[in-house]
């Protein structure tokens, strides 16, 4: 058993160390520091192994630390009812049950399990049991440490704190044992049955109870929490035997770890989804010619993720604004709040327009379902054809995004008028034009960086670090702008000016560079 564990741990560590080296090799500049084949250089490998072990320790403690900080802050600050130790235990007990329901590590399909059990023929039982108890030990260690620190901070007694790690492992053991018993009687893992979905519902209710009840002033009395914990500790001790005695681990793993684990990495899932998004409606056709023909068929066959999604977004926006408008009419204080918000916090608009834009979905479908194949034909890569199709697509993506933008603009306008209006009449124009301008900006932005950086390789993986950095910066800028308060007039005019300028620059860049950059990445 110990031997199996040692070997499987070494395997996992190697897997992780190689992943780290691979990741480092993807970072521009830093990758130059590594030798061509870092996997065989001993010093580099040792370095990666050390990081992998630090990662393992971080994995054991860091997440739990955050969890306890969150728990304590919630217990102390958010809910004033009852003793903070009572709320602390209330949340801990319910959230631990959620963890037990959802986090069944032993039965999660993963590559390292697949490699160990099927490629390297580890003894499934020894592998499963030893790794399971190792995970439990990691849990217990972290929960003992943080349980004592945060438990005592919240006012629990030491013996109560010491129950926490026992309780948490007890719940985990019960969940695992339940899975095994279920498997014996039903022949499949519960996650593969209706229970797989049901548990999410139960978990949701438990989370709601964990946060919602204290907010309403209801807290499970401390003695009941302690009693529940005690029950699970006893049950855990009883069911631990089940985990050790169970003999059909290999069968379970055969069920959950078929080839699909290796196949179903994120890339293939995205690809599959993309193919699925193609409409099979036989009536779709086009009377156009050439690239217009190609584009029209593309748009019509991807209606679900383009136009339908955009209409749905527009509807949701309309509903939200309708609710806001009613609120402004009905609630007297609403007017002032809304008006103040509208004339001083328009930067919020950026994150909203960012969230409702279909640009990334559009470019991903473009690549996976269309450009991925057509870019292998040389006529498709001639500058004239690239630019022609770019123009057609730009028009299309702008049109698709304009609908929800118009709804947002109209909603803001009505809200502004109903909430008391503004002295500066330019504001009336700004709140309508700004969302439209931003919508056009995002459309141009996504399509431009797709054409300039074309981040995908033939396996439809994103291979451009630059692309990811820009995506991240786009998000961060939108997020940061949310925090900024400037008069709507200035923001709106600046946004409109920026959008126009950006579109011009983007157009120039695409004309100049896209014929060279719009290629499948090697």
């Amino acid at each position, binding site marked *: 058993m110990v031997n199996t564990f040692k070997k499987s741990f070494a395997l996992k560590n190697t897997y992780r160390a190689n992943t780290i080296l691979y990741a480092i090799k993807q970072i521009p500049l830093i990758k130059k520091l590594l030798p*061509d084949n870092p996997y065989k250089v001993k010093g580099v490998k040792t370095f990666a192994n050390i990081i992998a072990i630090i990662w393992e320790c971080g994995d054991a403690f860091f997440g739990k630390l955050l969890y306890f900080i969150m728990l304590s802050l919630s217990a102390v600050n958010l809910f004033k009812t009852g003793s903070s130790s009572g709320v602390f235990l209330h949340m801990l007990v319910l959230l631990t049950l959620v963890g037990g329901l959802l986090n069944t590590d032993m039965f999660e399909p993963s590559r390292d399990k697949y490699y160990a059990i099927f490629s390297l023929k580890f003894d499934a039982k020894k592998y499963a049991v030893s790794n399971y108890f190792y995970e439990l030990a990691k849990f217990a260690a972290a929960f003992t440490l943080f349980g004592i620190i945060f438990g005592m901070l919240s006012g629990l007694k030491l013996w109560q704190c010491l129950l926490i790690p026992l309780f948490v492992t007890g719940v985990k053991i019960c969940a695992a044992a339940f899975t095994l018993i279920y498997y014996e009687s039903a022949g499949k893992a519960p996650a593969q049955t209706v229970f797989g979905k049901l548990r999410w519902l139960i978990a949701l209710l438990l989370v709601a109870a964990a946060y919602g009840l204290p907010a309403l002033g209801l807290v499970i009395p401390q003695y009941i929490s302690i009693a529940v914990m005690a029950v699970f500790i006893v049950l855990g001790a009883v069911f631990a035997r089940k985990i050790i005695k169970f003999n059909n681990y290999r069968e379970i793993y055969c069920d959950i770890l078929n080839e699909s684990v290796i196949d179903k990495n994120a890339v293939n899932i995205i690809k599959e989804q993309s*193919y699925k998004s*193609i409409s*099979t409606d*036989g009536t779709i056709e086009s009377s156009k*010619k*050439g*690239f217009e*023909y*190609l584009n029209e*068929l*593309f748009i019509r*066959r*991807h209606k679900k993720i383009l136009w339908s999604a955009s209409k749905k977004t527009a509807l949701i926006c309309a509903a939200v604004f309708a609710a806001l408008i009613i609120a402004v009419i009905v609630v007297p204080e609403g007017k002032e709040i809304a008006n103040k918000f509208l004339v001083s916090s328009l930067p919020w608009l950026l994150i909203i327009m960012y969230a409702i834009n279909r640009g990334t979905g559009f470019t991903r479908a473009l690549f996976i*379902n*269309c450009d*991925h*194949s*057509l870019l*292998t*034909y*040389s*006529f498709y*890569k*001639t500058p004239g*054809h690239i630019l022609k199709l770019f123009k057609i697509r730009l028009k299309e993506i702008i049109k698709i995004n304009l609908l929800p933008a118009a709804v947002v603009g109209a909603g803001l306008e009505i809200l502004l008028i109903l909430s008391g209006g503004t002295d500066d009449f330019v504001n009336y124009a700004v709140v309508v034009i700004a969302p439209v301008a931003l919508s056009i900006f995002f459309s141009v932005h996504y399509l431009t960086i797709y054409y300039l950086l074309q981040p995908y390789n033939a396996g439809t993986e994103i291979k451009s670090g630059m692309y990811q950095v820009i995506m991240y910066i786009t998000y961060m800028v939108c997020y940061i702008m949310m925090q900024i308060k400037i008069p709507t007039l200035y923001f709106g005019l600046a946004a409109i000016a920026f959008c126009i300028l950006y579109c011009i620059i983007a157009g120039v860049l695409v004309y100049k560079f896209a014929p060279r950059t719009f*290629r*499948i990445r*090697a």
Partner: protein
Amino acid sequence: MNFVIKNLSKSFDKKEVLRNIDFTFESGKIYGLLGRNGAGKTTLFNCLNRDLKSDGGSFYLETDGVKREVLADDIGYVLSTPTVPEFLTGRELLKFFVDIHGDRIGQPKPLDEYFDDMKIAAEDRDRLLKDYSHGMKNKMQMLVNIISRPNILLLDEPLTSLDVVVAEEMKQLLRTIKDNRITIFSTHLLDLALDLCDEIVLLSHGELELVDKADLDSGEFKEKIIEALKEEYDG
């Protein structure tokens, strides 16, 4: 018409995959490009199709001593894994290609005739390509690549994963369209190369080398090729 490659080279990191390749391909012939796994056949094709930027060298078409640049329309490239736009039907893809290459094709035939030539069944022509089998996608890819009558047809291991019937159909097709163009056919299957190709070219040590058949019978010829390819490993 000749297709001339001059001093073409390409390296990845420090590995020299193509080493100053110099070669002249003649029109009307099928060239079997033989090389061991990883010898750089696909890299060569990707450089010729300008999917990869070569490190140095050039290639051009030469007719009666007049050189001209290889244009995008000159090259048809059939990949080993067929790639076709999944959201189109077979007929739509064909129509799109006929539209785009209108000026090269001149007076196109009715679309169904093209399908007939490729032996693609009537009931499959209006299905989405995402539902085509591997072999059918391969046929479609071949069809759209030859429809524009490229001067150079690059085929990267195109028959390896096809069933025997389709593979035979494809071979027959390649023989019928070989006139007035250069067909370069990469494979690591020696028998296939001997069966189909007019000339055998080896890609080894990053260089292209024509194997002279001279007066060898097919057994001796095979031996010679295998010996030549083995050297690479030993050397």
